[in-house]
């Protein structure tokens, strides 16, 4: 099977890989919406969705009941509902942009996955670890930032095309917030790449190389960057929350003061696309954080993946790599939800103050500090 796959033309291979990734990401995004409801319920002392069931699944003893209690069928029911609901078009909207916005939301979210490695396998021929990735290009993190930022256009478009007050305010907030936090986010990863790009080597922004540099032998080499550069990780984490519009930074949506924010005028499938995009964004953001600071597919600090799977068949090794990475990402997504259902929303002025007056100086100081520190370490 593997051989058959490897014999195919490269573009078909890429298309197949792309399809598989989409087919994984979208269900994960969907599952996230269910997880969100379950986690919120558990935190609030409720069982959460647990009623919907499919007859012939319910007949399976124990397991059927378990799935029902888990609310899995609510997810299907929701999906079916979104697809079959009447497609309502408010009379006052700008039709073209109104329909464009949900698509614009989804496209960048799915595009960024191209440069994110989500696993690694051991290539016996070269005796090296190779990334499982759609496009192993050196621009890596730059591409993630560049494309990922485009998603804010969907919010602005949605807010503007809705031709109504609340969505418009939501869109304005989204753009301001994105600009504020994009800076800190970019600055926070500079020390990571300063460390990865040791003098003399090929300059790289590849996320695969970031993980590789966390898989070196020795105390410093095997240390995950979250321990090496905790402040970078913190700034990146805060900015990531702001970028993905999650609580406590979900200014664009902000039900309490903006009804539904940018998606007030949206319904049925178009509305769900925004949420698929948001969760896809969250998934990729979690992945990037895991790659940058949590050692990627390395199961534990100072325990690299490569020696563990060196003797295994290529597909098994690959699956283990992907598995470890997915587990870490999902745990991180859980953190997103956990925080969402713990913290209240900031006021908008607080968001701006934190972004510009607190986080940005901190990120700049952080860059200077690590630049100096790395220079000192490299020199010695």
């Amino acid at each position, binding site marked *: 099977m593997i051989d058959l796959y490897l014999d195919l033309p490269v573009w078909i291979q890429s298309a197949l890989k792309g399809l598989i990734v989409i087919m994984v990401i979208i269900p994960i995004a969907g599952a996230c919406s269910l997880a969100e409801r379950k*986690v919120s319920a*558990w*935190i*609030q*002392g*409720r*069982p959460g969705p647990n009623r919907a069931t499919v007859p012939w699944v319910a007949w399976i003893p124990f397991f059927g009941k378990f799935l029902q209690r888990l609310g899995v069928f609510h997810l299907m029911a929701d999906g079916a509902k979104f697809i079959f609901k009447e497609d309502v078009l408010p009379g006052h909207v700008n039709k073209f942009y109104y329909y464009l916005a949900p698509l614009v939301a989804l496209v960048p979210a799915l595009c960024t996955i191209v440069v994110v490695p989500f696993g690694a396998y051991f290539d016996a021929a070269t005796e090296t670890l190779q990334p499982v990735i759609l496009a192993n290009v050196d621009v890596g993190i730059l591409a993630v930032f560049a494309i990922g930022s485009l998603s804010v256009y969907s919010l602005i478009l949605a807010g503007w095309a809705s031709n109504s007050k609340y969505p418009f305010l939501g869109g304005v907030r989204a753009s301001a917030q994105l600009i504020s936090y994009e800076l800190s986010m970019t600055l926070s990863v500079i020390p990571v790449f300063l460390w990865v790009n040791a003098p003399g080597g090929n300059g790289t922004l590849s996320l695969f190389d970031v993980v590789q540099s966390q898989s070196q032998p020795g105390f410093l080499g095997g240390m995950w960057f979250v321990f090496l550069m905790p402040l970078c990780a913190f700034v990146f984490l805060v900015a990531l929350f702001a970028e993905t519009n999650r609580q406590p930074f979900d200014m664009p949506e902000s039900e309490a003061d903006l009804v539904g924010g940018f998606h007030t005028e949206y319904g049925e499938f178009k509305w769900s696309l925004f949420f698929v995009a948001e969760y896809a964004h969250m998934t990729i953001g979690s992945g990037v954080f895991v790659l940058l600071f949590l050692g990627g597919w390395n199961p534990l600090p100072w325990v690299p993946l490569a020696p563990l799977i060196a003797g295994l068949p290529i597909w098994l090794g690959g699956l283990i790599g992907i598995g470890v990475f997915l587990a870490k990402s999902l745990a991180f997504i859980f953190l997103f939800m*956990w*925080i969402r*259902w*713990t*913290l209240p929303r900031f006021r908008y002025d607080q968001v701006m103050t934190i972004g510009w007056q607190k986080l940005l100086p901190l990120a700049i100081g952080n860059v200077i500090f690590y630049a100096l520190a790395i220079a000192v370490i490299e020199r010695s």
Partner: protein
Amino acid sequence: MSFKTVERKPLTFAERTYVPQILSGLKTTLRHMVKPKETLEYPETRPIIPDGYRGVPTLVKDPHGREKCVSCQLCEFVCPPKAIRIKPGEISAESDQAHVEKAPEEFDIDMLRCIYCGLCQEVCPEEAIWLQNVFSMSGYTREEMVNDKTRLYELGGTLPDDHFKWDKKKAAEEAGNAAH
């Protein structure tokens, strides 16, 4: 009006970073996540109805099976949303309850109107109408939501009686003035 100025304690550095508070908040929510759930899963498990609960109004019989309502229509009069409709009737002379003389011929409570205030129970001189522990009343049509006499007695059942005043009345009538 007097004012009292409350001194605000300045925030410490740790507080200003929000981080310790966020962490303690996360701890709280995590504790709740693993705690047993509070939710009562309604149709399967039923709530415990406290004494004196004001549920659906019903008509009751006394322990001897006598219909207590004598259709005095006070409940109909007092009912704020005018949910009660009674058509009074006479008990036939052949009945062994003939000494009560009066009983409702029709007794309708429109549950679409009822506000469960309990004034009917409070005003009833015969202790015949009781708001008992049925709290869920539903139907597909307006007609279904009107409880007629049969249904009201079905819902009400029998409640204990303290005085049996009508039985005493009947006994006195049978004994006549010779008894004293």
